[in-house]
Structure formats: structure tokens, C-alpha cells
């Protein structure tokens, strides 16, 4: 008997969540990297024809490298990419993230504490030296005024 598939409004099945963690091109590339083991941008370009520009494949590979899903090394002038995680690890990781988020939001208990600085965004981190300079400047300014 066929199991009826249904979904609640606003909710997705786990398989769909895993699938949507990557874009369409990213998914295509990851499938190919998992299948071949090592690929370059031109390998991908050749494998999927000329429907998509070479530079788009290069960008997609670079994005996957930045997401930590691919490792890369120089081979002559080009990069050769290999998977950093297996398909199973990836699917498990996404599922854990989704579950963790769900449990974290609905049942996770966090200690009640007020911390002066809990985390620093990369944006803030880049500005820290500049902020320190501004504080010193203001200190000098107030010191001169007295």
C-alpha cells in the first residue's frame, strides 16, 4: 500500500530539508564530487555541457569550498576539489542541525545569565581596532578639555 505523503503548512519533510540545504547547482556539483572523488572546474563544465557558464561552475565550487564541504589544492594553475564530508555525514549533519534547532527552540534550557559580551560578529571583529582608536581619541579629547 502506498503511504500517503502529506505535509503541514510551513513544515517540510526531513528529506526535503536536506535537499534544500544546498542550491540546485551546488547539489549537482556535490553529487559529481562524491561520485568522482576529485574534480576541477573544467571537469564539471565538461560533464554538464555548455548550458551553464564555466565561471558559474567555478563560483559554485568556490562557494562549496567556503562552506567547508570541499577541500581544494592547486594543480598547476587550477584548483582540484575533493569532498571534505561524505554524503552520509552531510545528510546526518543537516538532520542534526534541523533537530537541534527544533529542540533548542522548543525545549532547550539556557541558564539565566547576563554576560557583558557574549559573542562578536565578524563585522564587529573587523572594527575592533577602529573602535579602540575612537575610544583613545575621545579620551585625549576629554583630557584636553579639562
Amino acid at each position: 500500500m502506498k503511504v500517503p505523503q502529506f505535509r503541514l503548512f510551513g513544515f517540510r519533510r526531513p528529506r526535503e530539508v536536506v535537499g534544500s540545504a544546498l542550491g540546485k547547482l551546488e547539489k549537482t556539483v556535490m553529487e559529481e564530487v562524491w561520485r568522482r572523488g576529485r574534480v576541477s572546474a573544467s571537469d564539471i563544465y565538461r560533464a554538464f555541457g555548455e548550458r551553464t557558464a564555466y565561471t558559474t561552475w567555478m563560483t559554485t565550487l568556490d562557494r562549496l569550498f567556503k562552506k567547508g564541504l570541499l577541500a581544494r589544492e592547486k594543480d598547476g594553475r587550477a584548483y582540484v576539489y575533493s569532498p571534505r564530508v561524505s554524503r552520509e555525514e552531510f545528510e546526518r549533519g543537516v538532520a542534526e542541525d534541523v533537530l537541534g534547532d527544533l529542540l533548542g527552540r522548543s525545549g532547550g534550557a539556557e541558564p539565566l545569565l547576563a554576560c557583558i559580551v557574549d559573542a562578536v560578529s565578524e563585522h564587529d571583529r573587523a572594527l575592533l581596532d577602529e573602535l579602540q582608536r575612537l575610544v583613545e581619541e575621545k579620551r585625549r579629547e576629554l583630557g584636553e578639555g579639562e
Partner: protein
Amino acid sequence: MYALLCICLSLSALLALNALASALAGVVWRALAPRVQGWDARGRARLLFALRVSPPGAAAALAFALIVPAYLLYEPQDSGEGVSVKLLMLACVAAAGVLLAAWRVARTWLATRRLARDWLRHAEPFAVEGARVPAFRIRHSFPVIAVIGVLRPRLFVAAQVFEALAPEELAAALAHERGHVEGRDNLKRALLQAGEDALLHAPLGRSLRREWQRESEMAADEFAAAAGPASALDLAAAIVKISKLIPRGSRPTLPAGAHLLGDGEDGTSRRVRNLLRLASQTKGTRSHTRSTPAAVLCLCLLAAGTLLLTRPAVLKLTHDAMEQVVAQLR
């Protein structure tokens, strides 16, 4: 069946009123936000807190002080009215929200107690001038300066913070934490979280909690900076130094939940710039806290509630409305 119908109606009313009032509170804040820009952070934080906790508070008051008496007074015991499936489902959702909120409050209390106990095991007490809470020095990889707990708050400071900050910067940072204690921010955070849980995390009024988190942190900064321009600058310097101590990509090993201040695009930067602005102001020109709106709002709710409960006509009207709702939900 008589009692079950009463319970289902009260719970459904609680859910519906809370959802409606929370959505309304979000709209009210959007309308008020530009007008309260000139207030100090403490005033804005108080207003946000009142707006976020009023909906569940008012919903609970109306459900249990209006719906229940109206039902008991005007519903005949032998009416033979049953509970429809729709009403039962609504009541179940409301009950799930109440249970989730209660469960989270209990777990949060336990997690806080466990953490405090864990830190106290290796902590050394130290004296802080003017502090009303006990202070402890701990060894931690994260540059912790935190107040833990609601009923018996304790201040914890990581050893590396003592080494990194100048004495006046440390004093300003401790004054910031004293601002959290004076504002009872941990208790408020627990209440705000419970309010969100009661609505099963429906996105109604959630932005108010995020805004409150930011404003309460700014309010603690302003509390510390109230001592004078030098204190504002010392705190700004302390925030920058502590931020630099945070290992890249890390958060406290204990999820600090609500006060993820640097989480936004400009968390630290916004605070430091605000402190620099405060340092430029002389004491006399600073804006004063306006606690009036929150107090006025609470008083209005209380007065309205008393007025409603003392008029039997209102209870009769409420009962008629309940009958309509029950008929619609059949």
C-alpha cells in the same frame, strides 16, 4: 461536561487573546518606536518589556477573571452543551503552550542552578565595592563577566579579564553587570521566554524580545556610564578589550541565550559608539528614564479589569459572546 467546557473555553480564550494582543503589541511598538528614539535605553527597555509581557498577562487575567466567572454565573449546569472537536483542539494547543512555558521555566531554573554550582566549585570570592551580589573569580576559556541567577544572583569574572583590563575598566564592566542586577534582567528574560513559549513560538511579538535584549544591554551600559564621561569611556574600552579576547568563532561554552549582543551586524560597534556619545554629554544634559508608560499601562489594565469585574452586565455580555463562539465552533 460542564467543567470540561469551562476549562476548554478558558484555555481557548487565553490562546486567542494572547495571540491577538501579542500581534497588537508588535503593531503598537512599530508605531511608537520612532517616537521613543529620544528616550534613554532603560526607558525603551521598560516599554518593550511591558509591551511583551502585557499580552499574556492581560490574556490570563481576562480568561480567568472574566470568562470563568461569566460561565459559572450564567451557564446553567444542566444545559447539556458538549465540547466540539474544534474547541477541544484549540484548548489542547493552549494547554500545550502553557505546559511548554512551565517546562522551560523549570529546566532553565535547573540549568542555571547547575551552572552556578559548577562554577562555584572552582571559584574564589573577591570583593567589589558597592556590589550587592557576591562576586567570584573563575578560570574559563571564555572572557566571562556575567551575572547568573534570578533570586540569588552571583557575579562571575574570568581570571583573564582581570589580567586584560585596567582597574578602572574592570570597575566600569562590573558596574555594567550591576545595571543588569538592578534591572532584574535575568528575571525579565525568563518571563519573556515563557511568554514566547506560551504561544508555541508563533512569530507574534517575537521582535519585541529581540529589541528588548538589545535595549537592556544598552541600559546596563548607560547605568555604568551614569557615573561620568570617564566611566563611559572605561566601559567602552573594556568592551573592546573583552571582545578581542573572545576566540574567533566561539561563543560561551554555556549558551547565554538572550544576551547575544554581538550577534547582530553591529552589536559591539553600536554599544561602543553609544558610550562615546554618552561620554560627550555632560551629566546635566542626559535624558532621563521614563518609566511612566509601563506604569501607566499596568495601571490602565488593572483599572479596566476591576471595572469589568464589578459590572454584572459585562459578565452577561461575555457569556452571550461565549455562546456565540461555542456555536461557531460546532
